[in-house]
């Protein structure tokens, strides 16, 4: 319901003031050219918002389940910084801005980084997940130093990067959505397949093993699906913070701890949240717009602070 409302609102409201009646006639294919163009742009960004919001949210659910860390976020594994590094490298080699091919580059960079983080951090002496998180932090630090070095020595790379790094739904056409859709579908299917095992894993590794869950396999599969979901979303619209962090918490408060319910609900909530954030960004600063990545950070961070204050985040 909420998602449907959000989608409808996303079509009717935006940076350009439009008459609802015009939008309806444009939807029927008989409106003015101007309104149709506005509507097309809104449909594109709504589609991107739904896809990427859902992907980031599910990715967050899986990572929080696997690391058993309520603050798990796709960024933790190096997804964001990996795609940033790939993007600036490609831009400095080609010397140009980011075309639609940059989606693949960002995607590849993210995946390579996650694999590296996982390979270094996955197995520790005591089987703890801490080293995975720490490895992610180390890789993030080193790669962001690299990104800074590249953008500060290369003005044209800096120029295109400073817009990409915020994360925005505007100007992404359906071509991009089609490119990343297969990764999103595969990631989502794996996530749904894994959900019963994630429930077992939540009981602790030993219990999960005794219930016959192949812990290592589930963990590797989960990291894989979380990574391709987050990598595809980041590649498509740029880094967007907090959706992967906050939505799993919202989801848990709605449907409880069963992952078989959490994942479908996270799809809906994540999609709705990102679309609503995008609408807000378009409405607040008319006729300018605030990119959705900024809106999610400015809304998500106080939410996290409240969670800390109330003690939800540190049980």
């Amino acid at each position, binding site marked *: 319901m909420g998602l449907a409302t959000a989608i409808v609102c996303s079509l009717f409201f935006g940076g350009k003031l439009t008459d609802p009646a015009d939008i309806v006639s444009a939807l029927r294919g008989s409106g003015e050219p101007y309104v149709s163009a506005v509507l097309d742009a809104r449909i594109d960004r709504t589609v991107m918002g739904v896809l990427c919001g859902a992907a980031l949210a599910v990715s967050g659910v899986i990572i929080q389940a696997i690391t058993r860390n309520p*603050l798990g976020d796709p960024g933790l594994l190096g997804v964001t910084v990996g795609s940033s590094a790939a993007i600036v490298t490609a831009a400095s080699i080609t010397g140009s801005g980011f075309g639609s091919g940059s989606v693949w580059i960002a995607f590849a960079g993210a995946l390579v980084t996650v694999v590296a983080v996982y390979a270094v*951090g996955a197995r*520790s*002496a*005591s089987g*703890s997940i*801490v*080293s995975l998180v*720490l*490895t992610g*932090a*180390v*890789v*993030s*630090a*080193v790669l*962001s*130093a*690299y990104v*800074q*070095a590249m*953008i*500060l*020595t290369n*003005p044209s790379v*800096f*120029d295109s990067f*400073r*817009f990409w*790094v*915020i994360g925005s739904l505007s100007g992404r056409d359906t071509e991009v959505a089609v490119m990343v859709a297969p990764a999103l579908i595969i990631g989502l299917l794996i996530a749904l397949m894994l959900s019963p095992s994630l429930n077992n894993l939540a009981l602790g590794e030993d219990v999960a093993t005794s219930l016959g869950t192949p812990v290592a396999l589930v963990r590797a599969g989960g990291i894989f699906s979380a990574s391709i979901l987050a990598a595809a979303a980041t590649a498509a619209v740029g880094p967007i*913070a*907090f959706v992967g962090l906050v939505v799993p918490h919202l989801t848990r408060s709605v449907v409880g701890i069963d992952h078989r319910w959490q994942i479908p609900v996270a799809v809906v909530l994540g999609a709705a949240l990102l679309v609503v954030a995008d609408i807000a960004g378009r409405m607040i600063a008319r006729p300018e717009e*605030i*990119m959705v*990545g*900024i809106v999610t*950070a*400015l809304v*998500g*961070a*106080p939410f*996290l*602070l*409240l*969670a*800390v*204050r109330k*003690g939800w*985040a*540190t049980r």
Partner: protein
Amino acid sequence: MSHTDTSRRFALSVDRRFCIVAILSIGSLLIVALLTLTIGKLGIPVTELPQALVGRAEGQTAFVLERLRGPRLATAVLAGALLGVSGALFQTVTRNPLGSPDVIGLGAGAGAGVALMTLSFPLFPSSLGAVLGAAIATLAVYVCTGRGFRSPARTIIAGIAVAAMAAAIIEYVVSTQLRDAASQLAAYLVGSLNASNGQDVLVTLGAVVLILPAAIAVSRDVSLLEMGDDTASGVGIDPNRTRSIAVILSVLAGGAAVAAAGPISFVSLTAPQIARRLLKTSNASVFSSALTGALILTAADLAAQQAPLVAGLPVGVLTLGVGGIYLGYLLVRERSKGRL
């Protein structure tokens, strides 16, 4: 009897070690300072240096010493020392080896303050924005942890949230600025000494003079808190007051460093760690941590001025990269010992 002997000998060996480490650190600092002033295209010839230092230099030498490398070197030494002090106090208070003012969003908040100041009031000095931003960020984390930084987990999470919000503000401002201004802003926001001037030297010098003695004075009480609040009250220390003083000093030190040099990452995190390893004690002393911090930042800035490949980059990029690798080394080592 024999027990007393052992502890006395132990105390003596710690003191001796402390002196050796201090002398070696100061020696290395002097060498780095000498190199910073003398090598490279504009370097001051070693023969002219004594004359120049007593104020009898002319022309290019005077310009290099008084306007270019002198202020830069002094800012590096002082800001590095402040970061070391800040980290040592904060790590001891929070009992968290990863604790640093970065963790409570200090650097990010200062960055956001500078960004907003540049956007809204370009005529005001940006260091004012840094101080305001750092103060607001620290306050936000303090309020949200609810217990005055006492719970490390809460502090870190609140710090993440504040840092994320600050990052969003910074990104927004950078994206709305013209390319040149944005590029300059981005360089400052990663931490840079490229434009250090006399004002930065004054800010950091004042902060060192005021904060260092107070920090050394309070650090003894703070280390007694390690034994637990009850024991500490038993020997006449008010735990909450001590903790608050230490955190305030830590924030002031970190804030002054950021105001002068931008949010340089990893120095306040690593300086106490390195000092602790050099001294082989469980807690880094504030003084040796300050020395270590000064050494790290001057060495990094020397590299940022002269080393191939990285020359010309802001020093913060170097500390971020090298600090990240050091963190990786710690990780690998801890893991091989099975402690992770």
